[in-house]
């Protein structure tokens, strides 16, 4: 009996201990997780952090001093290049290790290793898109440049010095929740993170939808509805700027018809995910007499913050700005002489080539009417709690065949716009040395340095805005732009035909650029780089012109501009789109058909001030109204579920509404009666009122745009409790403040150059990546209120500042 009691309790004790040390599905190992010695409690940071600290680290060459300001932003003072990047790596890892690990895993297709079978498809996708291929090429190129190799290696050393100092109890909380451990950092991880930027910003593709439209409606309608230059535009390089170069020859277009697309993929309205702005204003228009520069890059917002603020100081460099957690240097920022920023260029750097394989072995494919060998690349995906999966991807000289016929997964939305049986030619696969551009900008002191730095940049192409103490301002849509014939890549291309391939690149010094234009400012908002007088083809479509137009209009009339006038402009919620169509739409509503509630809403929206401010109810009505209107007009003709297509642009819809009221496109082809423009305008207005009433009850404060928009910042791994609360903010896709539900300005910066340089910035998050830190989201409210923090720019180590709260000394071990 005693024996029995012992056995039962012993088994019970073992079972209890074991089960609390085991991960059950999404539930972390509870004993391990709740253990107050090494579990999550240990991640709870005190409000009062260490003010003095001395660390000795193996690998440092000299002494490093780090000053932390009141937002825990490190200001790193080192004696040499190696130590400054080493320390940047160390401190970034200290604040953001899990984010660095998780994003690298996401980019490289290694998520299933830690989260199990549900990540297999996303891992397979990243690998089939050639992320590994691209990152390997990039790291090979970078490592051939001794200067860049030094900083990549130093950064990795610093990250590893931090990782090696950790015991399991010190791991960031997400490692504990997901129950895995960080691993050694290598420079290729940095390459993965940089490639991820290309994947986010330069991987959209429409050729597949366009090919279907071409087939169904023919070239005339394509030309009419999908023109190569919009009807309303305000390009980055001001109209009429002269091109002072000799154009290199471009081959003539392939005249044979484009290959046909394969069916079977769901269509999706292309969403404008980017809404970045930047500008620089010449000293002739500012209160200081010296240039001011603004930048707000828009991305899908996440916590921990996408960016990491840092100041890096050596004998020949003193730069402040935001870095990518996981890559050395500053991406957007300023030093004492220059400031720069970036927005995305929507140039076409991704094309699809139809591949004819010789047989089912996929060993050979037809190119220039001859058989050419493919190179298989074996990807093996480790899966937590399951067997490793191997996947063979066939590479042509164009690039990988992302999905062979019948290989594409169903119901996997990332793959929706990918044609099966096509090879991917993508700039992100090329070896590149983009880090060098930022390294040189970090040390730049004038316009010539800026121009030189840009020549090293490949992708994702960016509009590099620039300002200097010499009172120069400039902007350059910059990157590797493939040399193409007009409309090359607007439709699917033929992998057999050499004329369909990229014909080298537009010479780097012939990328569109402008310096000190007469209007006294330069700006960009993702719109067309240049008007049609630019002699090369970049793309047939860019983001709408509305934000750019508003910026230019406001900057034109600005005189004696201050940092605060810049701040007001970056928070401007005015919609040029609403200005273009609201009166026209209001005139189109058949007032006698409206109910009392609809009349009330109509009175409100037709007198709306066209500002997407958080408190505006008109904005909510208009937003749903115009969205539904686009659907009413186009979905019957371009919403085919078999042969996938997309809608014409907003620009084309505006033209239709204003100048083609009798167009056939207003009629719904699937009904017997004939709908007029006013019919669809009225129907979509009623829809808007109806859906607001359904969601928020009868018209009230609940209809305010800030409530309807529901802006928030989600956690990177979608752990709800680690995301932000809902933020009551304004903004829209067609406003300068292009904030939507969870996409918006990932960093806002204003720099007023001068002897007494002033800079301001904020991101929707904080410096720390730890949800248990007071510095995790301390900037969120400031961001949501449209305010900025003054940035602490220290000229030397001993500069006194009442904003410095801690000083750490690093010495070599």
């Amino acid at each position, binding site marked *: 009996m*005693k*024996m029995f*009691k*012992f056995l039962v*309790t*012993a088994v*019970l*004790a*073992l079972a*209890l*201990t074991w089960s*609390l*040390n085991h991960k059950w599905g999404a539930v972390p190992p*509870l*004993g*391990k997780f*709740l*253990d*107050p*010695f*090494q*579990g*999550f*409690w*240990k*991640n*709870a*940071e*005190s*409000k*009062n952090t260490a003010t003095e600290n001395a660390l000795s680290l193996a690998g440092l060459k000299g002494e490093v001093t780090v000053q932390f300001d009141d937002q825990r932003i490190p200001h790193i003072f080192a004696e040499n290049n190696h130590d400054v990047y080493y320390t940047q790596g160390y401190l970034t890892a200290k604040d953001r290790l899990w984010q660095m690990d998780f994003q690298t895993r996401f980019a490289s297709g290694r998520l299933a290793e830690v989260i199990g079978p549900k990540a297999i498809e996303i891992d397979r996708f990243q690998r089939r898109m050639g992320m590994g291929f691209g990152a390997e090429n990039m790291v090979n190129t970078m490592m051939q440049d001794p200067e860049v190799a030094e900083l990549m290696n130093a950064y990795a050393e610093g990250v590893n010095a931090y990782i090696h100092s950790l015991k*399991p109890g010190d791991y960031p*909380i997400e490692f504990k*929740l997901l129950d895995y451990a960080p691993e050694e950092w290598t420079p290729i991880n940095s390459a993965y993170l940089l490639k991820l930027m290309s994947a986010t910003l330069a991987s959209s593709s429409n050729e597949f939808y366009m090919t279907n439209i071409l087939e169904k409606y023919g070239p005339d309608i394509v030309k009419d509805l999908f023109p190569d230059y919009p009807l309303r535009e305000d390009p980055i390089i001001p109209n009429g700027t002269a091109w002072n170069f000799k154009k290199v020859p471009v081959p003539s277009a392939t005249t044979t018809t484009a290959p046909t697309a394969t069916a079977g993929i769901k269509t999706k309205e292309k969403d404008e995910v980017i809404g970045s702005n930047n500008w620089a204003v010449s000293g002739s228009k500012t209160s200081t007499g010296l240039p001011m520069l603004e930048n707000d890059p828009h991305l899908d917002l996440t916590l921990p913050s996408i960016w990491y603020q840092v100041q890096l100081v050596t004998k020949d460099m003193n730069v402040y700005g935001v870095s990518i957690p996981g890559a050395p240097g500053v991406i957007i920022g300023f030093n004492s002489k220059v400031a720069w920023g970036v927005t995305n260029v929507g140039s076409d750097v991704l094309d699809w080539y139809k591949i004819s394989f010789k047989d089912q072995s996929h060993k050979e494919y037809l190119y220039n009417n001859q058989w050419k060998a493919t190179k298989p690349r074996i990807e093996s995906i480790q899966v937590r709690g399951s067997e490793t999966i191997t996947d063979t991807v066939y590479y042509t000289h164009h690039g990988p065949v992302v999905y062979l016929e019948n290989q594409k997964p169903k119901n996997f939305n990332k793959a929706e716009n990918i044609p099966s049986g096509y090879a991917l030619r993508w700039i992100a696969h090329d070896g590149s040395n983009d880090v060098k551009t930022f390294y040189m900008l970090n040390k730049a002191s004038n316009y010539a340095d800026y121009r030189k730095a840009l020549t090293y940049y490949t992708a994702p192409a960016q509009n590099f805005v620039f300002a200097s103490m010499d009172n120069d301002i400039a902007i350059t849509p910059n990157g590797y732009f493939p040399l193409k014939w007009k409309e090359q890549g607007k439709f699917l291309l033929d992998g057999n035909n050499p004329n369909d391939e990229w014909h080298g690149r537009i010479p780097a010094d012939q990328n569109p650029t402008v310096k000190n234009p007469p209007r006294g400012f330069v700006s960009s908002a993702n719109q067309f780089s240049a008007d049609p007088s630019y002699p090369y083809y970049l793309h047939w479509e860019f983001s709408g012109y509305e934000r750019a137009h508003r910026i230019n209009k406001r900057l034109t009339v600005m005189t004696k501009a201050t940092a605060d006038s810049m701040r007001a402009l970056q928070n401007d919620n005015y919609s040029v789109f609403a200005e273009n169509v609201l009166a026209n739409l209001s005139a189109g509503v058949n007032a006698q058909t409206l109910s009392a509630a609809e009349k009330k809403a109509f009175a409100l929206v037709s007198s709306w001030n066209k500002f997407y401010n958080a408190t505006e109810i008109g904005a909510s009505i208009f937003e749903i109204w115009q969205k539904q209107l686009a659907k009413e007009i186009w979905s019957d003709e371009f919403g085919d579920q078999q042969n996938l297509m997309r809608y014409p642009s907003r620009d084309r819809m505006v033209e239709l509404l204003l100048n083609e009221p009798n167009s056939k496109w207003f009629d719904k082809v699937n009904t017997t009666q004939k709908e007029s423009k006013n019919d669809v305008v009225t129907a979509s207005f009623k829809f808007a009122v109806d859906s607001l009433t359904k969601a928020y009850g009868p018209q009230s404060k609940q209809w305010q745009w800030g409530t309807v928009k529901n802006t928030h910042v989600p956690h990177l791994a979608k*752990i*709800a*409790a*680690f995301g932000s609360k809902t933020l009551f903010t304004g903004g829209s896709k067609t406003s300068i403040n292009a904030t939507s539900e969870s996409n918006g300005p990932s960093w806002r910066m204003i720099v007023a150059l001068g002897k007494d340089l002033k800079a301001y910035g904020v991101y929707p998050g904080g410096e720390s990546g730890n*949800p*248990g830190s*007071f510095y995790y989201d301390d900037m969120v409210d400031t961001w949501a209120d449209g305010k900025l923090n003054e940035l602490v720019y220290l000229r030397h180590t001993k500069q006194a500042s009442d904003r410095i709260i801690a000083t750490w000394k690093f010495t070599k071990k």
Partner: protein
Amino acid sequence: MLFILILLLSLIAQFFLPWWVIAPIAFILAAWMGNKPSKSFGNGFSAIFILWACMALLHTLPNENLLANRVGQVLTSSEKGMPWLLLVLLTATLGGLVAGVSALAGAYFKEAFGKRRR
């Protein structure tokens, strides 16, 4: 005595060893010096309950329970979450249970093998 020893030894060991070290500590100490099984359970349970509760409070109070509140939301998968103090009690109870049951097993071990050999 058993109570104090489990508490102290666990406190020291937990700085170096994984959390489950509390199980063998409670087992061995109870097998060696435990008396009545129910009392051993009580000693093991309360020792770790108090140790873990104190440690959790030591971390969460200077943090103003910021993280505890977030984790409460994670564990309940709800925006409402749970009061941070409840999470402290849950933590302490789980640790207490592991140590208590292990001490109980230790006491039964002593009853089954100890007397005969001594």
